[in-house]
């Protein structure tokens, strides 16, 4: 028996078969599994609310990915310029979120952002705010929490491509008279773009599908695809519609990931792919 068979069997049982089941379920017209049709898909694409939920979710992923990207570059530049001790420390701090469970990390944000949370108590006791601000259950609070939680997925590829950047290239640019800002924009950024794009795609996919954080920090008023699917499947018991939602969401996220990956391979020149 070839050694790949157990893994292939697991893959088949845990991934391929459920996916086939999902496709099959999505093709029923009623929650009672009567009548095969494309009705669930037509229902989605003719419903502005559903489409808004999808675009909001994709936009959330894009926004979080952009926020992590903006944070990752300064962090990576500091990392690369640091000595061994600082590098170990920074690596530890970056990895820390990955070592705690999603639920714990998310509850930490609830403690920080809540009505009686750290931010509100601090601002109130300093007299800077008159009344507690609403931070939890807001779009911005959700973006903030997801940005912190997903930062490792961005920081690691960016640091990796920065480490692989030949130091002589930045020295050459400096010797030719370029300022630090110019060196960053004309040399460092284009040459670390594969790493940044890889990180962006990882964070995009992870943030858009982050059910727990979205639900707990975003709350019930912000409806996004993961909680929409959950609500349709568990709350309304409409399995065909929630199966269709799942497939549409999966295709949308993977489609964007593949499209951006293909575009970057085509237009990022002279840089070996990360």
């Amino acid at each position, binding site marked *: 028996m070839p050694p790949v068979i157990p893994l292939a069997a697991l893959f088949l049982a845990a991934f391929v078969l459920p996916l086939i089941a999902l496709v099959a379920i999505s093709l029923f017209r009623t929650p009672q599994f009567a009548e095969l049709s494309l009705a669930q898909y037509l229902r989605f694409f003719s419903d502005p609310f559903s489409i808004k939920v999808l675009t909001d979710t994709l936009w959330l992923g894009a926004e979080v990915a952009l926020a992590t990207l903006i944070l990752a570059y300064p962090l990576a530049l500091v990392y690369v310029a640091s000595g061994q001790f600082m590098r170990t420390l920074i690596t530890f701090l970056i990895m820390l979120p990955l070592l705690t469970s999603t639920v714990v990390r998310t509850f930490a944000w609830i403690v920080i952002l809540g009505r009686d949370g750290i931010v509100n108590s601090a601002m109130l006791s300093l007299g800077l705010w008159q009344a507690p601000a609403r931070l939890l259950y807001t779009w911005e609070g959700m973006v903030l929490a997801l940005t912190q939680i997903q930062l490792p997925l961005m920081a690691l590829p960016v640091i990796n491509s920065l480490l692989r950047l030949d130091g002589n290239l930045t020295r*050459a640019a400096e*010797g030719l*008279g*370029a300022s630090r800002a*110019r060196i960053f924009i004309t040399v460092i950024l284009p040459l670390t773009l594969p790493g940044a794009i890889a990180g962006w795609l990882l964070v995009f996919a992870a943030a858009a599908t982050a059910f727990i954080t979205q639900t707990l920090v975003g709350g019930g008023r912000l409806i996004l695809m993961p909680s929409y699917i959950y609500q349709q499947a568990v709350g309304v018991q409409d399995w065909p519609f929630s199966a269709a939602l799942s497939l549409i969401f999966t295709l949308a996220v993977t489609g964007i990931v593949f499209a951006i990956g293909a575009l970057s391979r085509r237009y990022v*020149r*002279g840089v070996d792919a990360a």
Partner: protein
Amino acid sequence: MELALSDVRGHSLDLRGIGHAFGATVALDEINLTVAAGELIALLGPSGCGKTTMLQIIAGFLRPSKGEVRFDGARVEHIPANRRRIGMVFQNYALFPHLTVFENVAYGLRARKRPNAEVAAKVEQMLGLAQMAAFARRLPGELSGGQQQRVALARALAIDPGLVLLDEPFSALDKNLRLDMQIEIKSLLKTFGVTSIIVTHDQEEALSMADRIVVLNKGLIEQIDSPDALYDRPASLFISSFIGHTNLLRGTVTDADRVQLDAGPEIDLGRSVQRRRGTPVTISVRPENIAFGAERPGAIPITIRATVPLGAVSVTEGVTASGEAVKISQARAAGVAKAQAGETAWLAISDVSRVSIFSTPVDDVSKH
């Protein structure tokens, strides 16, 4: 925009009392060096001798722990690398892989915010001089090593540098291409009249390129001299074996002008050895300064090990009675019988005035 090449003059460079330490490790110690405008200097030394540190100090990537760096007499230690107007050519060329050849050469001009028309004219001129005009739209990855090097030099020269620094510029090239590129680049640098400093561990590169060679060893300058003087009159045992090939024979001073070699004979050096009797010395004799001769007083007996034909010359290797390896380089003249391995041969020094004498280092004496 016409550029009168002969008018472009490089900086003169002065290093005064330069020292640099990385923590407790002293990389450079009391370096004093004056380079005239337009001169081509090689910094030569084994790895770890401090030559790269010296280059980084001149370029402004590193601030020396002590001492002064002067361009045209003015101190520059406080001036950052991007304001020094220095052209650098790196070992791996460090061309920007995502930019075309044209944009690579234009980089320094764009950093100086020159108008587009001027940039284009200058880049075309530089690519023409480097014989790379046909490759302007290529990416560096599509070029051969020699072509990349031409682009790297064109990029460095495009900013009208006062000084060009080349860090091991030929080490990435095939051996066959190396000499061609050395000649080509030397003539380009000379055309520009720019002061140039080449850092290398390859003595052939230093000998073929430089007006003067600075030999560095363990953070100190061992000798500054022309290539010929360095070869013919090495100032130290280190240089005599580092520059070119040489035979080192140990002996003891027996008279004002005589040395008793461990290998057998007493030889007359025809000049004062300037050491007291009984001093252990090492003499350095170049392989081409030894010839096979007859058995007679003063001739050195060796046992032949092998003879290797090397094109124009053939090199014979042998060993003396005292166990010292000796190489003899001869023009591969017809009619000379090839010495066979195991045979005994007698060697004569052709020109004793070209033999260098050094005190044997103490740690060698003990092994004696």
